[in-house]
């Protein structure tokens, strides 16, 4: 029956041939290094690229998010309240803070995320650097150090200070005590992943210690502009997408080659923006998955098919949640969080790695950490909402 229908459809509405519609795929070399460097997930070179969040008004050339930082600075000057910025991983919080640098009084110390901090011995040198001191015996002693002038300290990804296990909150609580003790002389700006914030707010009432603000996702126009900026100097050629409906193919067959490319471009960016969901990192990985190669200054793009991830068993979902909660975890840390036997823990991580849910992060002092793949970030959030009843946005 189905074959008969297909036969009739083919007779009445013949499907246009691919070679008539799409440019032939040339022999492409791999993407050149300088090109992929433009699409690295490191903070944007021009932080202004990531200003202009969805729903924000731009005022005197400043996006709403910069106004938030300015207001928080005023609040600190008057009441000594530190600032906590929470947002989804990959929405450009670091870039936003870098864009805010000119607004902040000197000196500014930027403590970027260089991996997890697991004990006081590791935390002390980081905070010593923050306070501009040369040496300190303990956190208590360091809290009494008087910096020459008020300073700003940006502490990225505060979730790297805790581990979800008994005794795993002590270091974060020490840090909060330190922030509280030094809040008159230091304007603390702390960032955190939104899911860690959700958890820590329930577990240890983290938000009570700060004035907390949410960094929302970027608007669609901004994401498109950021991508185009990175692709500057290259023309685009759109190849046949991996998933293409018959109807759309027929519409394309009625267009001239130029309009066809314009339509494919519109379709491509529509899919990219839908996939990104306001997250610049997801937009970047979509672009890299689509870019097949560069030839004579033209980047050839083929919209990838978005495949729904397979059903995840509960035990794997719980491991994914734990990794997501801490931004990144090593195998030993996963084991400590779950009291797993080493066999099961390793096996679970290997399964998640092979399915692409996790990827290895660059090792920190010989310790291999794993992180949730941005490709599946929103799918994981959906699973956490539906399967574990987590109330996250």
């Amino acid at each position, binding site marked *: 029956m189905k074959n008969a229908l297909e036969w009739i459809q083919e007779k009445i509405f013949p499907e246009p041939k691919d070679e008539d519609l799409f440019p032939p795929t040339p022999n492409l070399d791999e993407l050149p290094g300088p090109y992929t460097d433009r699409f690295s997930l490191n903070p944007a070179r021009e932080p202004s690229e990531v200003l202009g969040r969805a729903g924000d008004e731009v005022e005197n050339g400043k996006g709403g998010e910069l106004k938030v930082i300015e207001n928080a600075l005023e609040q600190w000057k008057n009441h000594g309240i530190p600032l906590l910025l929470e947002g989804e991983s990959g929405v450009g919080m670091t870039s936003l803070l870098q864009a805010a640098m000119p607004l902040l009084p000197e000196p500014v110390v930027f403590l970027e995320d260089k991996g997890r901090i697991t004990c006081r011995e590791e935390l002390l040198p980081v905070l010593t650097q923050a306070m501009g001191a040369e040496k300190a015996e303990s956190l208590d002693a360091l809290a009494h150090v008087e910096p020459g002038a008020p300073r700003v300290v940006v502490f990225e990804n505060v979730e790297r200070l805790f581990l*979800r*296990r*008994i*005794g*795993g*909150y002590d270091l974060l609580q020490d840090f909060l005590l330190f922030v509280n003790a030094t809040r008159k002389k230091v304007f603390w700006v702390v960032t955190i992943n939104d899911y860690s914030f*959700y*958890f820590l707010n*329930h*577990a240890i009432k983290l938000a009570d210690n700060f004035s907390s603000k949410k960094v929302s996702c970027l608007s669609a126009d901004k994401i498109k502009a950021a991508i185009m900026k990175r692709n500057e100097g290259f023309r685009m050629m759109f190849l046949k997408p991996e998933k293409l409906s018959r109807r759309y193919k027929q519409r394309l067959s009625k267009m001239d080659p130029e309009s066809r490319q314009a339509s494919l471009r519109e379709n491509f960016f529509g899919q990219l923006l839908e996939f990104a969901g306001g997250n610049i990192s997801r937009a970047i990985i979509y672009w890299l998955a689509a870019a097949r190669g560069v030839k004579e200054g033209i980047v050839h793009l083929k919209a990838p098919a978005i495949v729904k991830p397979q059903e995840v068993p509960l035990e794997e979902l*719980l491991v994914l*949640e*734990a990794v997501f909660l801490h931004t990144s975890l090593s195998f030993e840390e996963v084991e400590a*969080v*779950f*009291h797993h036997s080493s066999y099961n823990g390793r096996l679970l991580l290997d399964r998640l790695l092979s399915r692409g849910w996790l990827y290895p992060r660059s090792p920190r002092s010989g310790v291999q950490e794993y992180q949730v793949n941005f490709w599946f970030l929103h799918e994981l959030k959906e699973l956490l*909402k*539906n*399967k*574990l*009843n*987590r*109330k996250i946005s």
Partner: protein
Amino acid sequence: MRRKKYLWRLSAGLAALLFGPLSLFAQEAGEEQPSPTWEKFIEGLKKLIPGNLEDDFLDTIKEDSGILIEILIAIPVVFLVTYLLTRVLKWLVFKAAARSTQYQVQWLRAYPVLRLLAWVLAIVYLLQLLMGEHWEILVFGLLIMLAYAGKDGIKDLLGGLWLTIERPFSVGDRITVDGYYGEVADIGLRATTINTLDDSKVAVPNSFILGNSISNSTSGKNYCMVVTELWLPITVDVQRAKRIAYEAAISSPYLNLDKSVTVLALDYFREELATVIQVKAYVLARQYEKLFQSDVTEAAKQAFREEGLYS
């Protein structure tokens, strides 16, 4: 895609079965004389049976039926179709419930109502089919009902109807009845089935539930409170023990993060002296109740030992 089509066809089939009898009523309402419903029923049956082999027989009973033949054919056919329909409904509802923990409770609560509706429609259809021209059968039926009114079967049936309408608990709730604690697997017209935590199925007659007290720890929500007790020597450092117990609870992956965790310390002076640390927390879904308790106990015991709280 294929699966979607399959489900669509199945839903269309179910709708046709459900609303078929209703359409018969609608057709008859417009006519002056009541139409021979029996003839329509047989015509419908003929369409269901492939080939012409049985048609002669069906034609004969269509023209010269008699009440006994009508009962012998109509009742089994209607009951069988309704039974199959309820099985398919159950399969669909449980499938939908398994897909989303968020709406699991709503799906599970809907099933007994849908099933009751299917059976009521089937019985109404049968009465319409058989009683329209044979009022004596109604009287006969009433007599039977009266004769058995005192019997347990009728009590259970009425109990099942009451449970479906009143809903003191629903499928998926954790209840205690007659000393059995477990998850309600099914609320039948005669008995309610409970899955105990050791995976035994207990069927409790609905009449028993009607006449006894029941405790429901979930009350239609998909999460429930779990109390975990940790027994320690009376001389224990209570503050340290409470902190460990709290961190064990908030670190459990089965915890419902949107509800508060309470940790209490109580002293017992009975056979032996002991301090009991009581952790009151909600689990993210009721099926994780025991996993949560075990996780908290395991993590806390390990920490108590490491911090020397057992000595």
